[in-house]
């Protein structure tokens, strides 16, 4: 049963990660320098965005809950770099990173977080329900695991209508113990659907470490039981994630069915904007921070001669400027009026027929 993680357990976990999972950054064959720099830009944009969100939440510009994608940037960005514009993704309660990685507009995102009319959901959703349907991002959800079958449904559409798109289903390690996780993976497997289950294993579900939530803490080990391929990759490494997703997507598009990818990393920041992390020794976080995917990527770009320190500084400044611009945009966007309350409850046609309004 649950116990407080000791410092020595933490050290062992870090060592195991270094030994078994950590992979040096190395771009996949054929990826252009510009594409690699783009991965950096996008990761940095997510980092800036979620750093700003925390501050805005503290100053009450953002209402409700918000969960940060910091430390996970390599996963969404690596995965989405391997996708087409017409592919779909489903998300979690931690959806800002997924939205940006899939091409979402930071302005409409920030407006949504501030509950404004120009937000992706017109202010109805907020952080936990952010969506960018036009970009194939099928929306965040506040209920752990609940988007799993939605991804399977998108896969079913692809198969039924013989369309070439794949769907990446992002989910946390905590979600793997939900019943609907199991039903979804099994269904996609037996129907051979083009779905990629991408587990963001940050080793925590709020206060519960994954190895206290599952006796076998290797998520990818479950794949075999479903008769599908499973793999664990370095989740601090965008190229490792890219390669795994690329391979899975190719298999899926050619009728090979789903894949379970475990991107292992560590949440070395709080669970959400106001987490005091009283459930763990935060000294352990420091052990993991040195794998910071953005720092690693900057070093890699420099070492492989793909970017100068000035380029990195410019990219960082550009990310910051984009977020500042998004904040300005959001602040200038109007609050939804009372008349919009009922909008979107049903299709406009039905609303008219039934005369539904305030």
């Amino acid at each position, binding site marked *: 049963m649950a116990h407080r993680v000791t410092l020595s357990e933490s050290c062992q976990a870090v060592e195991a990660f270094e030994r078994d999972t950590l992979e040096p950054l190395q771009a996949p064959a054929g990826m252009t320098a510009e594409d690699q720099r783009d991965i950096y830009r996008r990761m940095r944009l997510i980092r800036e965005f979620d750093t700003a969100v925390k501050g805005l939440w503290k100053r009450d510009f953002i209402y409700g809950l918000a969960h940060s994608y910091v430390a996970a940037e390599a996963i969404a960005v690596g995965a989405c770099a391997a996708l087409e514009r017409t592919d779909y993704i489903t998300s979690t309660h931690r959806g800002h990173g997924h939205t940006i990685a899939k091409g979402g507009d930071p302005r409409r995102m920030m407006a949504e977080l501030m509950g404004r009319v120009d937000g992706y959901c017109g202010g109805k959703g907020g952080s936990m*329900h952010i*969506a960018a*349907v036009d970009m194939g991002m099928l929306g965040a959800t506040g*209920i752990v695991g609940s988007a*799993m079958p939605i991804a399977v449904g*998108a896969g079913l559409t692809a198969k*039924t209508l013989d369309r070439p798109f794949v769907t990446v289903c992002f989910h946390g390690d905590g979600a793997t113990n939900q019943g609907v996780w199991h*039903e*979804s993976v099994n269904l996609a497997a037996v129907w051979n659907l083009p779905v990629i289950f991408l587990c963001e294993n940050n080793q925590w579900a709020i206060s519960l470490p994954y190895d206290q939530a599952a006796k076998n803490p290797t998520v990818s080990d479950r794949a075999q039981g479903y008769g599908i391929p499973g793999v664990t990759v370095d989740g601090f490494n965008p190229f490792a994630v890219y390669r795994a997703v690329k391979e899975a997507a190719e298999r899926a598009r050619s009728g090979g069915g789903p894949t379970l990818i475990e991107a292992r990393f560590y949440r070395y920041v709080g669970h959400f904007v106001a987490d005091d992390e009283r459930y763990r020794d935060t000294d352990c976080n420091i052990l993991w921070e040195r794998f910071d995917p953005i720092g690693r990527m900057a070093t890699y770009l420099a070492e492989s001669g793909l970017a100068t320190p000035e380029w990195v500084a410019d990219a960082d400044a550009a990310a910051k400027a984009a977020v500042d611009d998004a904040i300005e945009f959001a602040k200038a966007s109007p609050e939804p009026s009372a008349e919009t309350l009922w909008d979107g409850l049903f299709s406009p046609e039905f609303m008219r027929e039934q005369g539904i309004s305030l």
Partner: protein
Amino acid sequence: MRTPSAAAAAPHADVAEGAAPRVMTVKQAINETLREEMGRDPTIIILGCDVGIRGNPFGVTKGLYEEFGAGRVLDTPISEAAIIGTSLGAAATGLRPIAEILFSDWITIGMDQLVNQVAKIRYMFGGAINVPLVIRAPVGAGGGQAAQHSQSFESWFSHVPGLQVVMPATPRDVKGLLRTAIRSDDPVLFFEHKRGYEIKGEVPDGEYTIPFGKAEIARAGSDVTVVTVSVMRHKAMTVAAELSADGIECEVIDPRTIYPFDYAAVLASVAKTHRLVVVHEANRRSGIGGEIVSQVVERAFDQLAAPPVIVAGLDVPMPYNRSLEALVIPDEARIRDAVLAVTARRT
């Protein structure tokens, strides 16, 4: 997000224009509607346990697997949450799924998907997603299926904004309403009564639809308004015929859809009869009867000459034993007593 339906305009070959109405069972009406709509629109799929090769345990989907193939009539593993959630994902990306949950009691297994996703996703996402999804599920008791195979939960689902709830009782209504459900861009719970599948009736020819939120006056009458849910309509009609001989004229109203609900029809009737009886099989406590009565009282208090009475299932899990089961389900005698009680009082 919506796939334009290539076959939208092609009328199904079986539709015989101008022919006389045909008599068929509720089960046949469902089956025929599914077949016609699937023939018309290639984005429609059916999924659920045993809907394919077996044609569903009640025979409702018989022949569809053979006609449309395994790619459009999908036998699922026993995974109700995934059945509902997968249907949602499919609906959001271009299909029009018709999911089946074999007994409506088990929607509980996919309750989170239904209530927190299906019902809310359009609204949460600011209207960005259509959810053309029908969930068919038999409700109701009878036949000794006991506590886990006998329930009716229309009250629950009408409590959830974003869901449409349909409970038809005749072959004609089943056909017109199922077609409306399938063509709706919003989620529909389509509740068939498992003791109603063999009920026969006339069905018009052609591709007709019946709009949601329009009640049917099953029988006109001047003395008491009897609002019925699902197969209770038939019991109420029997009672109405009997009581007519005694000089009591019931106006039997079948709302057909629980949400949207046709309060205009009920209020118009109450304005005439000044008396109201509501009959449903679901448990009395927090059933839809309370909601209907509270709405009528709020809007037509002064027109009521007697307190409205609800005839409903008794508040126990459905017992297996035949005679205990019969105690729980509203029967003609209880409906009759209720009508007599509200009409006894003359103002």
